[in-house]
C-alpha cells in the first residue's frame, strides 16, 4: 500500500482534550490529541489499559458524558468541526458517516430486540427503505461479515449467538450505512485467537472493498501489525509516537514503544527472562511531572524529570515525544 499520508485527510483531530472530574479536581484522560486520518487507511491505536485509547475514540465522536468533559480542541470531518455541530446533526452523522464498534458487543446490542429489528432501526434512522429492500440489505451485510444462515439470525436475539457471532453483528451494524470512518475499540480482545483472526481477515477485506478509513484500537501490537498502515502509540493520554507500521515496529523512536516490542515473547530464547518494562502506568490523578514515562524509563535524565517533551517530527508525518529519542543506529 502507498503511504497513506499521501492521500486526502478525512478526519483531523486538533488539540482534543478530555478531562474527568472528581472531588479533587479535573484530570485529563487525553491531553491535547493531534491526529489525522487519511482516506481508506487503517490506523492502529495502541497502548496499555488506561492510556486513553477508548476516551480518544469516544471524544472524537463527541460521546463523553459526565463526569467527563471535552475541554478543548477541534474534530474536523469534511471541513466541519464536529464540536460545533448541534446534537441532532451529530447523531445523524454517527452511525452513518462515522461509526464505532465497541469492545463488548453487549453494550451495543439491545437484549430484547432481534438482530433484524436492531439492524432495521440502524438503517431507517438514516434514511427510508421499504421492508423487503431493508431485509435484503441486512442479509447482505450479515453475509459480508461471515455470518452463516443470515435469514435465521434476523429473528434471533443477541443471547442466542456466540460471542464471536455477536461481535460480527455489531460490525455488520457499523457497516450498514457505508461509513467513511470506523472507530473499532478492541473488537476482538474478548475473543479466541481463532475467531479473532477470522474477524481480522474479514475486516481487512471489508475495509479494502469499502474504502472506509479504520481506527483500530488495541493493546496488542501483534494484532495491530496485521491490519494497520500506520500505528499511533498512546501513553498517559498522549500519543507518544506515530508513523507507518514499519517505521514504528522496525525503528521505534520512543523508549516506551521499544519496551512494548521487547516485552513480548519471541526474541529471547524460551525460558529466559523477558525484557520487561518496570513499574506500571500512572493513574489519571498521579501523572508524573515532566515526561510521564520517566519513572519507568531506563534512559530518563534530569531533563525528563523536569520537562514534558513536546512532539517533534521529521516533517513527513513521523512524530515522537521524547527528549532522547532512539536513533536509527540504536534501533537497528
Amino acid at each position, binding site marked *: 500500500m502507498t503511504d497513506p499520508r499521501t492521500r486526502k485527510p478525512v478526519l483531523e483531530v486538533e488539540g482534543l482534550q478530555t478531562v474527568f472530574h472528581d472531588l479533587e479536581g479535573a484530570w485529563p484522560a487525553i491531553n491535547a490529541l493531534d491526529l489525522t486520518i487519511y482516506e481508506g487507511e487503517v490506523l492502529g491505536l495502541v497502548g496499555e489499559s488506561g492510556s486513553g485509547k477508548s476516551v480518544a475514540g469516544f471524544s472524537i465522536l463527541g460521546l463523553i458524558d459526565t463526569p467527563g468533559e471535552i475541554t478543548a480542541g477541534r474534530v474536523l470531518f469534511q471541513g466541519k468541526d464536529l464540536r460545533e455541530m448541534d446534537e441532532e446533526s451529530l447523531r445523524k452523522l454517527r452511525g452513518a458517516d462515522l461509526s464505532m464498534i465497541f469492545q463488548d458487543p453487549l453494550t451495543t446490542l439491545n437484549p430484547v430486540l432481534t438482530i433484524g429489528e436492531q439492524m432495521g432501526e440502524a438503517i431507517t434512522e438514516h434514511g427510508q427503505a421499504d421492508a423487503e429492500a431493508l431485509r435484503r440489505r441486512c442479509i447482505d451485510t450479515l453475509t459480508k461479515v461471515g455470518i452463516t444462515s443470515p435469514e435465521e439470525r434476523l429473528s434471533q436475539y443477541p443471547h442466542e449467538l456466540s460471542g464471536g457471532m455477536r461481535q460480527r453483528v455489531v460490525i455488520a451494524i457499523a457497516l450498514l450505512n457505508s461509513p467513511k470512518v470506523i472507530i473499532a475499540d478492541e473488537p476482538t480482545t474478548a475473543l479466541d485467537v481463532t475467531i479473532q483472526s477470522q474477524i481480522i481477515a474479514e475486516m481487512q477485506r471489508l475495509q479494502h472493498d469499502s474504502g472506509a478509513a479504520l481506527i483500530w484500537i488495541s493493546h496488542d501490537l501483534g494484532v495491530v501489525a496485521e491490519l494497520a498502515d500506520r500505528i499511533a502509540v498512546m501513553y498517559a493520554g498522549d500519543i507518544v509516537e506515530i508513523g507507518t507500521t514499519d517505521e514504528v515496529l522496525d525503528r521505534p523512536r520512543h523508549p516506551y514503544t521499544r519496551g512494548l516490542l521487547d516485552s513480548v515473547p519471541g526474541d529471547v530464547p*524460551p525460558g529466559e527472562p523477558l525484557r520487561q518494562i518496570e513499574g506500571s502506568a500512572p493513574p489519571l490523578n498521579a501523572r508524573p511531572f515532566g515526561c510521564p514515562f520517566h519513572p519507568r524509563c531506563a534512559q530518563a535524565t534530569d531533563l525528563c524529570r523536569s520537562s514534558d517533551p513536546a512532539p517533534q517530527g521529521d516533517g513527513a508525518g513521523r512524530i515522537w515525544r521524547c527528549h532522547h529519542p532512539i536513533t536509527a543506529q540504536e534501533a537497528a
Partner: protein
Amino acid sequence: MLDTTTQAPDAVPETVMELRGLEREFARKPVLAERLMKLVGKAPDTPSLKAVRSVDFAIREGEVLGLVGESGCGKSTLGRMITGIIPPTGGAVTYQGADISAMKGQALKDFTLGVQMIFQDPYASLNPRQRVGEILAEPLRVHGLATDKADIRRRVDAALTEVGLDTSYRDRYPHQFSGGQRQRIGIARALIVEPSFLVCDEPIAALDVSIQAQVINLFLALRAKRNLTYLFISHDLSVVRHIADRVAIMYLGKIVEMAPAQEIFANPAHPYTRTLLEQIPSVKNRKRHFEAVKGEIPSPHKPPSGCAFHPRCPMATARCRAEAPVTREIAPGRTVSCHLHDAN
C-alpha cells in the same frame, strides 16, 4: 537426539500427577420449555454435557506443562479437577501415586497444600474487604501452619517480597492495587503454604502486555528458585512457547496432541494445532493475508460425530465424519489423535 541410555537414572523426572480416563460431565440447565414440562409432570431427560472427555496424561516433577485450547474446551474444568476443587465424574487423578478422591489425613493435607491454583481474574479471587496481610495470613491460620503473630507477619512479608511487592502493602486493600499487583498478591497467597505444584489458569490473560512480561518473569524465577511444577493454562501460544516444556492441545474436552514444546512448535502433527499456530498474532506479520480457520468450536452439548474437529478441518475425509480417531504415540513422548497418523 539424546542417547537416553547414557543418562543417570535420576535424570528421569518422577510423575507427580497422573490423569487416567478423566471425565467431567455437567447437567445442562433445562431450557424453559423443559422446565414447563417438568411442572406438568412430564420431565424430559435433560441431556448433560461432557466438558472433559477421557483425558490421560502425566505431569512430571519440575516441568511446565502448557494446556492450550479455545474458550469452552474444558481447560478450567480440568484444572479444577486436578486441584480437587470439583470431583471428576469418571476416571481418576493420582497425586504422588495416590487417588486424590480417596485421600485422608496427612496425605489429604499434603495434597491440599501442595497443589495450589492461580486464577485468571486476580480481582474476583481476592476478598475486597480484607487487607492484603489478612488475605495472605488466612491460609496459614486455616491450615494451622502458623499461629504466632510474629511468625505470621514474617511469612507474610517474605511472601510479599518474593513476588516483588513492598512489605508496607500488607495494610492495603485489593482495590488499591493495579491488575498486575493483584495477580502478584494471588501468587503470594498460593506460595505462602509452600506448594510444589501450581495450576495457573490464564494467569496473565487479564494483564497489560508490559505487565504480562513482568509476571511471566516472576513465574520463571519462582520455578527456578523453588523447583515448582506448573500446569500452565493459556490460550496464548506465544506465552506457552516461552514458558512450557511440554504442551497439550485440547479440543472439545479431549487432548488432541501432546508433545515437547520445541517439537510441537517446529512440527505440529494435528491439523488443529497447525491451525492454532498459524493464528498467533505477531509484530512480524505485517498486513498479512491469511486463511482463518473456518467456523467456531461446536457446543459440547452436541459434539460432532467421528473426529470432533472434522467440521473445521481442512483435511477431513468421510472416515473422519464417521469414526473417532484414537490417540497414538507417533514418536517418543509425542501423542496425537488424528486419522492422518494412523499409517505410522
